[in-house]
């Protein structure tokens, strides 16, 4: 490797951002997975005053949406700045209108895209080309890179080429597979970039800027006489563009030695079978072609780099004249099209060339078009080989899919999944860890140590599950002497580590181990017990695969080193010791150096403890000699129990076991409709400690079940007879605190396998043992000691009928006795959002429809494999859907309209049939129902049942239709749920419009004051003074007052609530919002891990937020105005604590104090001023008496 070239080990997002940042003056950003890190890097560098190539710090601005970012990009370009942005998926779709404009105006610009699936039947954060393919018509050039190295290089080529071509470039690479893959790559230095970008083209770009010094006008409206010709006038620029890119690639090659072509053939010079594709899949195809050619096969591949403008002649010229069959692969799907985009382009190019006589072959080759890799589905050498096999057939399938089993339309090609073509010199390692144990971070450190300390090439790819608590991560690492093109997971690992012993019971970890693999287990058990504790399947595999088994008690070593349960350093040291990528001593020294380098700035103690952990790891590692035969008495726990319903057994179970890829097409609902009530079958058992109830101390206040984010601790009042056959483990006492529940029994029961161990229930529990105050009515206890008994008790608990809903008083003390219809979600331990949703389902869940904005709540609410929304004993429960991020208010608004339409139709039919039905029943059904009264709702359900009975057996169409729609006579509640990123930013326009209507919808804003789901980027809800991503120096403007904006309409119910600390007011607000017959807005304070403190403190911290006025507590009810009262009621004054005392408890504020105390003081002062002003303003508003009705003009 060249001495002058600097090699770094980074992912494509960072590599691309580095180039784009240096070559830009203005950067407009908005977070969206998997492109967010590009924006984050740019923002971070700008906050650190890092200059671009011309010595200036670019403006990095976060907009309210990708649509906003595109508009800002367009404007900055018009003003002459070199401008870029980063996006993906729906974000790119939102940019499309501006892309047409930017291209139509022949403007040099570069957009970097981590290509990702578009939401169709479901959302997917993973990679394919459906987003970029939706931009084919925009007139942008499209340049595709297939590896982190290419992504960096093409970013530079795109920036330089666009200035020459005057066509905006969409530079894209595969989301996650490339964007998040770490690779050792040759870094482009400033000098190279400067040589690439021509000052002359830059000058011309600026010459085209709008300026009053040379005024021109753009954006005219044109008519039939002019538009067409003007559109065609741009053709020469498109004609020139491929040559410009080719020339730029040559220039780049001269500067760096890395050569690229816009179409690049690789393979046998006389190949008969050729596949055409782009993106990361081309790397795998390249590797497979080499292997096949090595076996004497005449195969080859064409890598498409510049997809638009599609240069027909260049494409034809790169094909070997010997080609007989072509397989064209698209990583996208266009239902109903004659073929996917690349296929159609290739066919058109071939036909065109044959027609013009420019093709090197006389006849059209056989052509097969295939889809692969949707949503990051694996694309492996086995699949490539299978495609070549298909192409060898006399009549290959014209259309196929690869990588799945399509048993419905039978399009899929079979492939041999075990095929391993990787050379032996490549060391392959797989690590199973938990999201919280640092496995991925330590693997990133490992690959940097190896990449930057040796001549080895390396690659790391990380796979996460979709849970936010107790999630599993799988890291795939490769090291080898040559370039690594294996853009797929590791299936034959030489080294395999399992960092969490619990995973051994859940997953077949050994399926990824090669024969003779070294296997490392982290376990607290001593050697002799460890072997016996392994499930039989694992023992069998270890022996059958001739593994060498090593073990370490990582927890103990981490604990001894003062690192708690953070085992990443310990496990990393074991890897280096066992994997022998580097000599032992050298590896350990490099690790220590890395600890100092990476963590040195966090303080000496951090370094000291991690170094102690490294030394402890080496000393604590030991080998377990495998016996000749497996002897374990227990088997791996099935992912779901036998009680689970058929769909869960057939489908969910496989996904839970990590074998979702095996499910055939027929297993799936084709329209994205999925059953609810399945999270209860996913027994994750992730808590180390669970709350154990002490009935003798309990005061039956139910605060534990009210605060639980996962509905994993339940309180229930029930008929004594129900406990007649209870097991001894099920403990219950008489209900003695509520008159209405006299005679019932009472229980607080933990769901031991669903609890995340957050401890909030214990923290909030007010009942202490008078003799020993540290013992409460709930105490966290070791799960191993209690899980068996509690599992049995909880199983019994689930069989107990709930009392009639009407019997439970709607007081804060009793409301959590209502059955939750939202349970065991994958939200973070201690989540501050989910209690609100659970409460809403307890109050209205049996008649609620939910529109959910994309974000945390849509992920823990609707991400496979299981669904947390559930049903009551009668099968009723929330119906839920997620449309998009930006449209949720409108989506819910539409739901209300749709429900209303069916209600109207039912009422109309009732009128129509009234004479044929019992008059008393018709009258009762036509009377309004008070939704505030459970008894009234129950009564209406009885009336509907009576109506159905009356209609039963009738054959006339209106009667059948009414019977079908009768349930709509029970009031339906529409809730619109989403986070602050939606409500304050991207969805605000729609939210505002819905508020301006009179429609009866309830809007719940789960305000975490940042974009939580994408990693804590600032929103307009972020408070002044807080550090967030995109606000690395602390936000300097005030939090948007969404409630005030809504109040300004006058007819909107508005509440600002904080449930953990003041649940009573939340309950009042929910009931008032539900009963208010117009739009209601509830803004809910949600503690979040993005705030940076231990979530166990969240209720105390929420109390501080309220007491300091940081979080206002009020309810604005327009109904009060009708009674002559001020509609605004302030529930807490918020002046009991200084704002500083609140802020100093949260790292998101304190980070500034540590960095720059003077700025911190300024921000605190400004925040104090803002809070005081708001408090004073609200106090005045609360004093305003409405104008008497007679003085108000009619609207």
């Amino acid at each position, binding site marked *: 490797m060249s001495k002058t070239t600097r090699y770094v080990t980074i992912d494509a997002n960072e590599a691309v951002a580095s180039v784009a940042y240096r070559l830009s003056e203005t950067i407009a950003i908005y977070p969206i997975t998997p492109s967010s890190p590009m924006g984050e890097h740019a923002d*971070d560098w700008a906050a*650190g005053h890092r200059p671009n190539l011309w010595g200036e710090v670019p403006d990095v601005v976060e907009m309210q949406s990708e649509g906003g970012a595109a508009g800002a990009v367009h404007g900055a370009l018009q003003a002459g700045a070199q401008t870029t942005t980063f996006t993906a998926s729906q974000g790119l779709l939102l940019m499309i209108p501006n892309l047409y404009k930017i291209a139509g105006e022949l403007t040099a610009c570069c957009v970097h895209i981590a290509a990702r699936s578009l939401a169709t039947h479901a959302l997917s954060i993973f990679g394919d080309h459906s987003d970029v393919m939706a931009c084919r018509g925009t007139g942008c050039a499209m340049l595709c890179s297939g590896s982190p190295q290419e992504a960096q290089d093409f970013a530079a080529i795109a920036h330089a080429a666009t200035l020459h071509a005057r066509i905006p470039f969409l530079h894209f690479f595969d989301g996650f597979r490339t964007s998040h893959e770490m690779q050792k790559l040759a870094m482009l230095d400033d000098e190279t970039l400067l040589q690439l970008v021509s000052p002359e083209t830059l000058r011309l770009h600026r010459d085209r800027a709008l300026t009053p010094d040379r005024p021109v006008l753009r954006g005219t409206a044109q008519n039939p006489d002019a538009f067409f010709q003007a559109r065609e006038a741009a053709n020469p620029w498109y004609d020139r563009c491929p040559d410009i890119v080719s020339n730029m690639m040559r220039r780049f090659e001269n500067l760096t030695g890395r050569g690229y072509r816009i179409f690049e053939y690789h393979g046998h010079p006389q190949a008969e079978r050729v596949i055409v594709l782009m993106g990361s899949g081309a790397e795998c195809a390249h590797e497979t072609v080499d292997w096949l050619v090595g076996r004497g096969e005449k195969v080859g591949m064409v890598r498409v780099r510049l997809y638009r403008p599609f240069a027909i002649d260049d494409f034809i010229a790169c094909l070997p004249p010997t080609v007989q069959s072509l397989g064209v692969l698209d990583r996208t799907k266009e239902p109903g099209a004659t073929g996917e985009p690349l296929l159609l382009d290739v066919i058109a190019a071939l036909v065109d060339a044959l027609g013009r006589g420019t093709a090197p072959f006389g006849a059209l080759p056989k052509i097969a078009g295939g889809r692969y890799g949707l949503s990051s589905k694996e694309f492996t050498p086995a699949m490539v080989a299978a495609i070549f096999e298909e192409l060898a057939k006399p009549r290959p399938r014209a259309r196929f899919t690869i990588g799945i089993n399509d048993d419905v339309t039978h399009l899929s090609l079979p492939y041999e999944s075990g095929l391993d073509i990787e050379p032996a010199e490549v060391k392959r390692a797989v690590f199973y860890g938990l999201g919280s144990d640092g496995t991925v*971070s330590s693997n990133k450190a490992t690959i940097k140590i190896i990449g930057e300390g040796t001549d080895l090439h390396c690659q790391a790819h990380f796979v*996460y599950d979709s849970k936010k608590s107790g999630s599993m991560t799988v890291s795939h690492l490769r090291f080898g002497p040559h370039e690594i093109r294996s853009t797929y997971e590791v299936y034959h690992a030489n080294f395999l580590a399992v960092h969490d012993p619990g995973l051994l019971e859940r997953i077949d970890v050994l399926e990824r181990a090669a024969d003779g693999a070294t296997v490392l287990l982290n376990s607290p058990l001593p050697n002799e017990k460890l072997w016996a504790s392994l499930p039989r399947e694992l023992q069998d595999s270890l022996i059958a695969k001739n593994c060498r088994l090593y073990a370490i008690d990582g927890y103990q070593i981490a604990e001894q080193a*003062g690192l708690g349960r953070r085992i990443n350093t310990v496990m990393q040291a074991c890897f280096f010791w066992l994997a022998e990528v580097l000599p032992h001593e050298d590896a350990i020294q490099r690790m220590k150096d890395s600890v100092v380098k990476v963590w040195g700035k966090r303080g000496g*103690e951090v370094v000291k403890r991690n170094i102690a952990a490294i030394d402890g790891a080496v000393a604590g590692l030991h080998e377990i000699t495998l016996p000749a035969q497996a002897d374990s008495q227990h088997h791996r726990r099935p992912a779901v129990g036998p009680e689970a319903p058929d769909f869960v057994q057939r489908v969910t179970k496989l996904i839970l076991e990590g074998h979702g890829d095996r499910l055939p097409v027929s297993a799936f609902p084709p329209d994205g409709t999925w059953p609810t009530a399945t999270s209860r079958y996913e027994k994750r058992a992730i808590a180390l400690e669970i709350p154990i109830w002490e009935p003798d101390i309990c005061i039956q206040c139910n605060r534990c079940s009210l605060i639980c984010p996962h509905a994993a601790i339940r309180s229930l009042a029930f008929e004594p007879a129900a406990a007649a056959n209870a097991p001894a483990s099920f403990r219950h006492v008489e209900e003695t605190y509520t008159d209405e529940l006299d005679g019932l029994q009472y229980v607080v029961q933990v769901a031991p396998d669903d609890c995340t161990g957050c401890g909030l229930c214990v923290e909030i529990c007010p009942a202490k043992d008078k003799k020993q105050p540290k013992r409460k009515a709930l105490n966290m206890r070791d799960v191993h000691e209690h899980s068996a008994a509690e599992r049995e008790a909880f199983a019994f608990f689930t069989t107990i009928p709930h009392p009639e809903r009407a019997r439970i008083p709607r007081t804060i003390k009793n409301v959590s006795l209502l059955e939750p219809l939202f349970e065991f979600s994958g939200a973070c331990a201690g989540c501050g959002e989910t209690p609100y949703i659970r409460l809403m389902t307890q109050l209205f869940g049996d008649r609620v429809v939910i529109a959910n904005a994309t974000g945390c709540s849509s992920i823990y609410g609707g991400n496979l494999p299981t669904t947390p929304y559930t049903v009551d004993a009668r099968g009723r429960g929330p119906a839920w859907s997620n449309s998009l991020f930006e449209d949720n208010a409108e989506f819910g608004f539409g739901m209300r309209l749709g429900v209303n339409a069916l209600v109207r139709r039912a009422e109309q039919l009732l009128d129509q049939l009234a004479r044929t039905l019992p008059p008393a029943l018709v009258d009762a059904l036509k009377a309004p129902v008070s939704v505030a009264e459970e008894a009234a709702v129950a009564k209406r359900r009885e009336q509907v049942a009576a109506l159905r009975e009356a209609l039963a057996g009738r054959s006339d169409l209106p009667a059948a239709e009414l019977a079908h729609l009768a349930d709509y006579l029970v009031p339906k509640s529409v809730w619109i749920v989403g986070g602050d990123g939606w409500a304050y930013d991207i969805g605000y326009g729609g939210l505002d419009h819905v508020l301006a209507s009179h429609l009866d919808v309830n809007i719940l804003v789960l305000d975490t004051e940042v974009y939580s789901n994408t*990693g*804590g980027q600032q929103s307009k809800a972020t408070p002044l003074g807080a550090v*967030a991503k995109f606000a690395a120096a602390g936000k300097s403007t005030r939090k948007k007052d969404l409630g005030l904006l809504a109040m300004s309409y006058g007819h909107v119910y508005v509440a600002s609530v904080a449930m953990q600390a003041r649940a009573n007011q939340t309950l009042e607000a929910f009931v008032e919002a539900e009963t208010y017959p117009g739009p209601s807005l509830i803004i809910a304070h949600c503690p979040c891990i993005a705030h940076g403190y231990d979530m166990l403190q969240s209720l105390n911290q929420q109390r501080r937020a309220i007491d300091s006025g940081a979080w206002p507590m009020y309810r604005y009810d327009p109904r009060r105005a009708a009674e002559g009262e001020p509609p605004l009621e302030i529930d807490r004054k918020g002046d009991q604590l200084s704002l500083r005392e609140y802020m100093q408890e949260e790292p998101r504020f304190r980070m500034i104090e540590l960095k720059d105390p003077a700025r911190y*003081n300024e921000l605190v002062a400004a925040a104090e001023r803002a809070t005081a002003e708001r408090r004073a303003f609200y106090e005045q508003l609360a004093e305003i008496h409405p104008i008497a009705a007679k003085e108000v003009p009619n609207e």
Partner: protein
Amino acid sequence: MSELNTTWLGLALRTPFVVAACPVSDDVDHLARYVEAGASAVVMRSLFEEQIIAEQMAAHHLIDGRTDMDAESRSFMPESGTVTLGHEHYIRHLERIRARTGVPVIASLNGVTPGGWTEMARDLEAAGAAAIELNLYEVATDPQESGSEVETRQIETVRSVVGAVSVPVAVKLSPFYASVPAFCRQLAGAGAKGAVVFNRFYQPDVQLETLDLDTNLHLSTSAELPLRLHALALLHGRVALDLSAAGGVHTAEDAAKAIVCGANIVQMASALLENGPEYLAATVAAFAGWLAEQGYRDVAEARGVMSLENAPNPGAWERLNYMRMLAGWQPRAKRR
């Protein structure tokens, strides 16, 4: 008019009034007003060994524990070196105080283990600390560690800090030693130049209603002064250490009492927090008035005149007097 200047650890100070280790030093501009009002030196707020370690580990845990755990969010905070942990920001604050006030700045370290402090003390010296005040605040909770073991460890800590720096080191003590004078002799032997009596123990209260501990730290009052006066009187002239009163000095009279019992300086915190710079100016003026009224030409002349060595009735400082006081006390109900 009498001279107000005094010396402390070899530093020449223009008055005996010094800002004690407390939040007064947090705001540099505000602090400057106390210096204008007569504070002759500033002891910075204590840098706690456990706190630094706890903050480092908490931040590490926070950043590290929420990194790379989810496909959509690599982390939850910006990546750049936003957080400076350890004592760097303390050092920068020290530099700001020096630049703004011009008076000697004494850095305060609160540590109980030898070794960990030497580097930090060196850094503080390099940043211009005029002296180091080592606060031996410690709550002994380990029944396995004897009093003498605790003391040995503390002396070792003092020795390691003294050995690390060339500026003078004072030691702030708690009142709970079997023999404060003997321990002070050991301190002098370990190289300390002064003793500050006493630090104020964190004394949580019990809340009967909630069965919780009330962890608020309450401000001192003049009622806490006599314990300090007693110690000053016992130490003055009997150990080779400069002496400072800390805790309970609220008025000019309090300061005067401390000086006559043997203090070189008095450190004030609660009174300053409660009453502000103007109050300090008035207190300094009243102290000067007292000194003049009593006919002392300077502070040194008044120092220690009421110590065990010099008091007209030294027995009053000793145990005998305690017996007499107890005998003179009767429960209220029995009084006539």
